[in-house]
């Protein structure tokens, strides 16, 4: 037993000496003989492998204990739900006591009304009231259900057919609220990754739709065709992938925020050159522009098939509520299942749909209302053309007449207060109801603020004269104080 161990020990010693003394294990480095360098290199190699395989040092993860979470929850102080109320937030709007026609009653006084978008004077028209009354007696007030679940009443289908026939498009779809039309239509066709080129002056409904669609949005300068052309050029040349993406141009026919009219013929030329699709909001031009009131396409002589999607709110010339969208059959059918404002919301009350049908019939049969409206607009333009301190920025043919403030008072807030004061004094002193610009903090539009007047075919010459004189007087008083 002991001899075996001694033998093994001697054998090991022999091995070691052999390794150290073997001729191949001898080397001379820098004049120093080293013996057994293979052994040394082998040991170093093993040490390197061990070091590399060690994991780097991470401090151990310690999740928060329940007590720590409790402390954090106790310490956290939320902001108040709303910021503190300031004086200007307490402003009350005028309360009407009769129908919002060209003349209305506020506080017992008769007032000339330029604040309702009643362009053709159809508020109070007896044919509309008749059809509304019979619809109310037959169908009640509400429709009690979304379109998919027994909320489709035959007047809705008749209204859609009537609109398509009037405009000459294949199909239409009715929405129950004007504002929801645009912010439901746009996310239907524009998804993440698509490209939308929109005017910077579009109203909040369109802005909300653009935001919900999650597409890439590029704004061009308000109603500037040169800016539009260069933006389209940049998009098409910069990105080679753009050819496979869906591309849209979004514009309004008559801009709510400035009263300008979009040059549709140039937009269509650009659209055909760069292969974009056009989504047009005709809320303020339906029933107003064009020889028979068929909107911007008739006004510029462009065939309606060239515009891919036309939407409009009916709360303007048609003196009812709701909105519609028209276009080709595939587009409209797709919206019936994927447009959230259509599928998940109750349908339009039937009496408003029947009012829309009657309103379109009235427009068809009385084209002289449009002529009277054009005359009124021209008269008002003449009266308001030389007010010191405010200038007309709207198009001479648009039914929304916009007077912008030439010199801003410094901040948007002060301008808003000044305009509000002007409108209040116009109501109190001259019995004139006009609109001063209002801006929500959610609104991204940065167009100049001013006074808006909605001209109606029901206004008489004396009304228009009164408006011009009153605004001239107030502008000189309020804008040139010390």
């Amino acid at each position, binding site marked *: 037993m002991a001899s075996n161990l001694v033998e093994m020990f001697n054998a090991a010693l022999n091995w070691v000496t052999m390794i150290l003394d073997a001729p191949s294990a001898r080397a001379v480095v820098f004049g120093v003989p080293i013996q057994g360098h293979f052994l040394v290199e082998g040991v170093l190699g093993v040490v390197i492998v061990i070091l590399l395989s060690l994991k780097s040092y991470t401090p151990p993860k310690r999740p928060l204990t329940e007590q720590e979470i409790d402390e954090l929850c106790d310490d956290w102080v939320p902001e108040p739900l709303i910021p503190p109320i300031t004086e200007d937030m307490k402003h009350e709007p005028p309360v009407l006591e009769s129908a919002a026609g060209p003349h209305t009653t506020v506080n017992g006084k008769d007032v000339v009304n330029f604040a309702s978008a009643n362009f053709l004077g159809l508020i109070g028209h007896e044919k509309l009231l008749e059809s509304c009354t019979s619809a109310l007696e037959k169908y009640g007030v509400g429709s009690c259900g979304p379109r998919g679940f027994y909320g489709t009443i035959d007047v809705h289908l008749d209204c859609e057919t009537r609109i398509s026939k009037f405009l000459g498009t294949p199909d239409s779809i009715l929405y129950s609220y004007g504002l929801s039309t645009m912010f439901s239509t746009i996310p239907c066709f524009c998804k993440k990754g698509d490209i939308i080129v929109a005017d910077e002056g579009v109203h909040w409904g369109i802005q909300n739709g653009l935001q919900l669609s999650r597409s890439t949005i590029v704004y061009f300068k308000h109603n500037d065709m040169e800016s539009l052309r260069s933006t389209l050029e940049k998009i098409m040349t910069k990105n080679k992938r753009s050819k496979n993406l869906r591309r849209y141009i979004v514009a309004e026919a008559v801009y709510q925020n400035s009263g300008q009219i979009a040059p549709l013929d140039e937009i269509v030329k650009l659209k055909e050159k760069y292969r974009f699709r056009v989504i047009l909001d005709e809320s303020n031009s339906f029933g107003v522009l064009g020889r028979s009131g068929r909107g911007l396409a008739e006004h510029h002589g462009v065939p309606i098939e060239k515009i891919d999607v036309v939407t409009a*709110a009916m709360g303007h010339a048609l003196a009812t509520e709701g909105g519609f969208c028209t276009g080709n059959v595939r587009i409209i059918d*797709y919206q019936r299942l994927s447009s959230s404002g259509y599928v998940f919301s109750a349908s339009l009350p039937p009496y408003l749909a029947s009012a829309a049908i009657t309103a379109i019939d009235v427009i068809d049969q009385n084209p002289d209302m449009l002529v009277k409206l054009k005359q009124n607009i021209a008269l008002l333009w003449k009266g308001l053309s030389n007010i010191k301190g405010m200038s007309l920025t709207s198009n001479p043919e648009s039914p929304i007449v916009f007077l912008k403030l030439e010199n801003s008072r410094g901040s948007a807030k002060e301008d808003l207060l000044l305009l509000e004061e002007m409108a209040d004094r116009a109501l109190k002193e001259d019995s004139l109801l006009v609109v001063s610009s209002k801006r929500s903090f959610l609104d991204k539009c940065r167009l100049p603020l001013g006074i808006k007047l909605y001209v109606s075919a029901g206004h008489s010459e004396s009304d228009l004269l009164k408006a011009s004189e009153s605004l001239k007087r107030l502008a000189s008083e309020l804008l040139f104080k010390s």
Partner: protein
Amino acid sequence: MITIPYLTAVSTYFSYGLLFAFGQLRDFFRRFLDWWLTSNLQGYAPICLGHEDFYIRRLYHRIQDCFERPISSAPDAWFDVVERYSNDNNKTLKRTTKTSRCLNLGSYNYLGFGSFDEYCTPRVIESLKKFSASTCSSRVDAGTTSVHAELEECVTRFVGKPAAVVFGMGYATNSAIIPVLIGKGGLILSDSLNHSSIVNGARGSGATIRVFQHNTPSHLERVLREQIAEGQPRTHRPWKKIIVVVEGIYSMEGEICHLPEVVAICKKYKAYVYLDEAHSIGAIGKTGKGICELLGVDTADVDVMMGTFTKSFGSCGGYIAGSKELIQYLKHQCPAHLYATSIPTPSAQQIISAIKVILGEDGSNRGAQKLARIRENSNFFRAELQKMGFEVLGDNDSPVMPIMLYNPAKIPSFSRECLREKVAVVVVGFPATPLLLARARICISASHSREDLIRALEVISKVGDLSGIKYFPAEPKKIEHTNNDIKLD
């Protein structure tokens, strides 16, 4: 929670798989046929990508006649459904002039105000003649009439909050209010089955959104604690504010929210509560004041109360009720108030009259009768359906009761057979519900009489046997005398 029997789940998956496979096969052949007749797009990208409307073209079109059925009368307890026919295999449906008088189990007409009412309709016509159909203007310009002022005052009295503001559409109310209340740096905790308008409003606000399990206050508490401790994503700064959004009655489940627990949790963790009472206002509670009355929650504890007028009041529009400062701020900043046309004056008058009837201020007790009737109708109907062996969801007292169908083939079979027997029901499938959980949804109204309900039960039982949807064992029929009296509280 709905638990599907295993066999049903397998057969439902199989059915969808078969439909999907057939759809793909047809699309494949269609691509050949269309190869030489592609509409000349000339460089435009196609407006609807192939797979986006696959569901519409291959699955939805087959059962299209079950949806969007037009009616030609008021949505009362009995109404006229217009008959339609199709020449091209259900792709387009054409109206005929024939109608069939059916029992209405689908409209949201909880208190029966959906048709001509002896108190409301004459007043509505009067206000129409005085103020005309619309004001054509937003509330801040010239859209506020004396009727609107009266309406807001009525709503505050009814709901029990200091102030209220009214909008023209319920969907737009949610979409426009939530971005005003909260923005980037805030947190929205919303129930997993919240309505699409709340989801849209939350997305539009830019705040971070976290979802908690449907109607589970314990999960809400867990998520709240985690989120407050962690802070904003990536920067870990503390949240600016937290809003918890819940609904009174969930329209696809018929369940009532566990509001007392949610309010207690939110008070403890200093979060704000936003309650959407679209279906529950006017329909539940002893005097119809909604879920707060039913569950005994103080209205001062709920920060923002939202509701719609389409369901129980037979009109259109939505409201927000809260403290005076909140409403003043909203009237100054909310885009739906500043830019959108105001609610039409006749609709506003209908709501005022309906509220007066419910509160009994018109001098009769029709309001109390209606409320008692809808409660009794819902409980009776639900109990009878469960006795027959149907799988019915929802809590007691809720007028919405979904009956589970599961299999996609049963959706059209249930709907068409019921229509043949002159009962109009609503069936819902994907995408409004999860893929496997298709259901038929019954909405009870106070204008249904006991005979109407018994007739409906007979028809549904017969059709249920035919379609095979009695998933639970039926209770054996007890020989007892049915009591036909209507009890008044």
